[in-house]
């Protein structure tokens, strides 16, 4: 089913344009993207390399700016915010998970998660998150003592513990094997269900779209498909 653009949606992306370089080297990455995401939705931004999905995610996350168009969250337009306000916006509303885990090497698992909790006014219980993520027995280990999947769990924990309105995931399984990827996706799914966070996940893995409520396919800087997924399946049943 085609998704409709709701002018009162929680997250609105309206005619976003963005290019890099100048003159002959100018490259249009976003060529006027528009779609909306409702609160609590699991939205997947799907597309091949160069389709502009990471740029889009960065703009939604307030760490990059569009050349034109706007992003609004709960009615607040990001383009009206200065650097300080954007930082506060990210601090209060967003959680980030990247392909690279970017954990702090000399803090243990628990402390790395506390780094996220510190930012929030109403953080989740750190211990509970650790348990949810299956990290109880590793909580005093340092990142270099963990596998890639375990490290990614920690980075999800760091993002989720903030109890963010939106959880931004940029290719969270990009560096992981099939089995671990599915575990991670299941975790994100759990967080969506348990904490009600809106999830925006960037991926180039077509299979992942099946677990989402809302799938936005991108190619060459434009939205090719913007559909609601009526046959959503649990992450554990995904196959690729």
């Amino acid at each position, binding site marked *: 089913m085609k998704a409709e653009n709701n002018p009162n949606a929680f997250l609105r992306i309206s005619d976003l344009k963005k290019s890099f370089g100048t003159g002959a080297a100018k490259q249009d990455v976003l060529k006027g993207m528009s779609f909306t995401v409702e609160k609590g939705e699991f939205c997947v931004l799907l597309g091949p390399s160069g389709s502009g999905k990471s740029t889009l995610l960065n703009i939604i996350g307030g760490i990059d700016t569009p050349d034109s168009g706007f992003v609004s969250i709960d009615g607040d337009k990001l383009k009206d915010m200065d650097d300080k306000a954007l930082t506060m916006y990210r601090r209060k509303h967003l959680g980030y998970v990247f392909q690279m885990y970017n954990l*702090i090497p000399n803090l243990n698992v628990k402390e790395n998660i506390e780094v996220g*909790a510190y930012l929030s006014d109403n953080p989740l219980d750190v211990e509970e998150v650790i348990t949810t993520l299956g990290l109880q027995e590793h909580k005093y280990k340092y*990142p270099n003592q963990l596998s890639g999947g375990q490290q990614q769990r920690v980075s999800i924990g760091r993002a989720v513990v903030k109890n963010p309105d939106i959880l931004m995931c940029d290719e969270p399984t990009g560096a992981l094997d099939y089995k671990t990827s599915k575990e991670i996706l299941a975790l994100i799914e759990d967080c969506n269900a348990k904490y009600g966070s809106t999830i925006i996940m960037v991926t180039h893995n077509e299979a992942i779209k099946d677990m989402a409520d809302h799938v936005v396919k991108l190619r060459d800087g434009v939205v090719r498909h913007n559909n609601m997924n009526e046959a959503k399946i649990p992450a554990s049943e995904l196959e690729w």
Partner: protein
Amino acid sequence: MRNPLIKRIPKELKSDWPKYIVIIVFMVLMIGLVSGMYVGHDSMIAAIDEGRVKYRLEDGSFELKSRAADELIKDIEKGDMADVREYFINEGIKEADEEVEKAVNEELEKQVKDGIAQAVKAQCEAFGITDEAVIKEQTDTAIEQGFEKALKEAKESEDFKKAEAEAYEKAHDEVKKAVDEEWDEIAEEYRLDEEGFETTPVTIYEHFYRNAKEDFDNDGTQDATVRVFMRNDEVDMASFLEGRAPEKDGEIAIDRMHADNVGVKVGDTITVGNKKFEIVGLLSYVNYLTLHESNTDFMFDAFGFDVAMVTPEGFEGLGARKHYSYVFMYDEKPETKEEKADYADNLLKCLITQTLVHDSEIEDFLPEYTRKASNFAPSDIQSDTSGVSILCYILIAVIAFIFAITISNTIEKEAGVIGTLRASGYTRGELVVHYMSMPFIVTLIGAILGNVCGYTLFKEVAVELYYNSYSLPTPAVTWSPVALVKTTVIPLILMFLINLFVIVDKLKLSPLRFLRRDLKKVRRSKAMRIPRWSFLGRFRLRIVFQNMPDYLVLTFGVIFIELMLCFAFGLPDSLNEYGDKAPSMVFADYQYMLMSNKDDDGNIIETSEESAEKFSMKSLQYARQGGLKIEGFGSGEDESVTVYGISPDSRYVSIPADLADGDVYVSSAFATKYELKTGDKISLHEEYENKAYEFEVDGVVDYDGGVAVFMPNAGFNRMFDKKEGDFLGYFSRNEIDDIDEEYIATVITVEDITAVTTQLMHSMGGMFDVFRYVLVVMAAALIYLLTKIIIEKNESSISMVKILGFKNGEIASLYIVPTAIIVSIVAVFSFVVGYFLMIYIFKIFILAMDGYFSFYMKPVSMILAVVYLLVGYAFVSVIDYIRIKKVPMSEALKNVD
């Protein structure tokens, strides 16, 4: 919730402990030293300040040629200028009256005699006597019998009285007229017309002394000069550090510092003059905190000069000349330096005029605020602390830069984490605070431990150091809040500002740039082209380019260390050079200064010594150029210049005998210090009179022993209104033993010149060696910290080349050789910069002081100054090699985060 990032700090400290230990030890030593110096300094200053009041330090002193009459003392105490005009008029009238009386009497006598002669002649003619012989005989008889009566009658005549009165009146008028005509000149000479004179009442105390020969080992030869005072309980008193004041003849108390230096103690017997004294006390005179014999002395001399106290009987029993020194205390104390100068100026005018009208003569005048012996120590203590503080701050700045480089490295390494944190909502401020906290905490630890050490260990060292250098009263330790601020707050501020600047600049980039690890501000489109060297050569060059900021900090730190090394090598070298050159710094082995060139009977003082040669000498002032002044150094505003009058064809000082009046030769010290050359005009002025003399430099005499001017003695006598043939002393190759001691003011020998270097070497002596080693350790620590950064930055590359099959030795040569080359170049470059900087600093310092002393470094010291640094680096390179060897191959395979 506390920021969990703070938990990283103790972990970071633990994981990189060798680095932080080096830094903390560095800081503890520097801060401890400064803190100790401040506490020592504050205690000393407190003791000195307290002593000034307790022991009644003079406000100044003056010396007269002879003992002052009570009237003169009373007049000076009033603080008013004498009426010089009236004095000159009275003196003139007195002289004129004598002349008028003489002239009038002579004229009257002549007239009376003529009258009697004419009367006799008339009587003889009346009696028909024409024989001239008879008439003369009659006339003589008549004069003999009637002269007195006739003279008396004549004097009583109205005509005479009128004429006499007229003559006196005329003479008096002429005196007044002459004084009026010459008044401007007189007023200028005695500075009477200057405005702003204010009465400066003082209380005057006699404080006579004698400069006697001291023979502390009783071997019959003079070892020092001792200035002996009588016990005085009113002013310029002494504090006793050991023993007591002398109570009977034959007892003496001497300066504690001098006693320590020459190795005598209470209970010992020494010979002063020709008399034996038992030392009963060791003292510190409040006006002799340093043993400066004369205020123009370049340096104090606690070996060759001593001050002592004896009983009045003991004092009278000493044969040496008595110096009529008087101490004054202002009735109302001046507060500021300017007031002190004004008061001294007023009192000097009073003194000059009063001594003039009382027929006395000033030998010396010295307000306390310009007195070296009481001001040198506090000033030196002060400059010690500021010197050490500056040293400490420079080092802390260097450490701050090392921190800044380390942190910017860490930031580069943690770019992904920083990007994620920023994306998650950490503010730039929070991250700045986080990265700032490490240097801040380390500095705080350094400051706290440093202060603890400062207040315990180093305080004792500092107090002992001062106590060993100066004749100070017993200090009581005072706590120094200033030290706490200067050793804690200032290092923290320095560390804070330098790191803040670097970290803020580094964290300015957007979160996205951090996530992309794209931290270069300027992106080069192409790699920098480098010469077509071998692969290894180009590899090394790349490492040099990669680490330019580290090398810049290294250069900065090494320049500082080289400057210190130049000081540590150069000062002893300069002192030794001065000592070696000392024999050439005296014109003659003996220079006898006489009190006057005539003895009590008015005979010229001569000697049978064949090598003796007459000379004249006088002290004038040269307006200091540049205006730099360091309080406590130098005798005051101007440079003291010794002017010599030299005998024709002198064998001691070679100047042309036919120099025109006004043409002079200057000493090489004078020429170098003030950059004088032939043809330059110099103006020298009297210290206590407003009289200046202009000279033209005609040549330079190779003499580095003092700031001096030379001219033929005949010209000297004409220039300074002396009589032809006048002189003031003898140069001699041998000791002169046929001039009575009471006529000799002073004798200068080579030992007097080397006293300066002996004193300095004693005061600082062994410190230099220790200092040099400390510098090597400091240099090594500095290089260690910087090379550690370079290796850490390249750990994964080192690991990678290991995987590729490079051997440890090869890898070490890749990463150590570039630094070795840079360190060698920087060492030489920094030495050159440090050397010239030292010469410059030395020159500024010398310009502010009286006298001249040139900075000298032996060629071997120059080489050593570089070699020491390289030896320090050699140790570090061994550690670097071990460090490179330990880099595991897995490092390159690690996940980038």
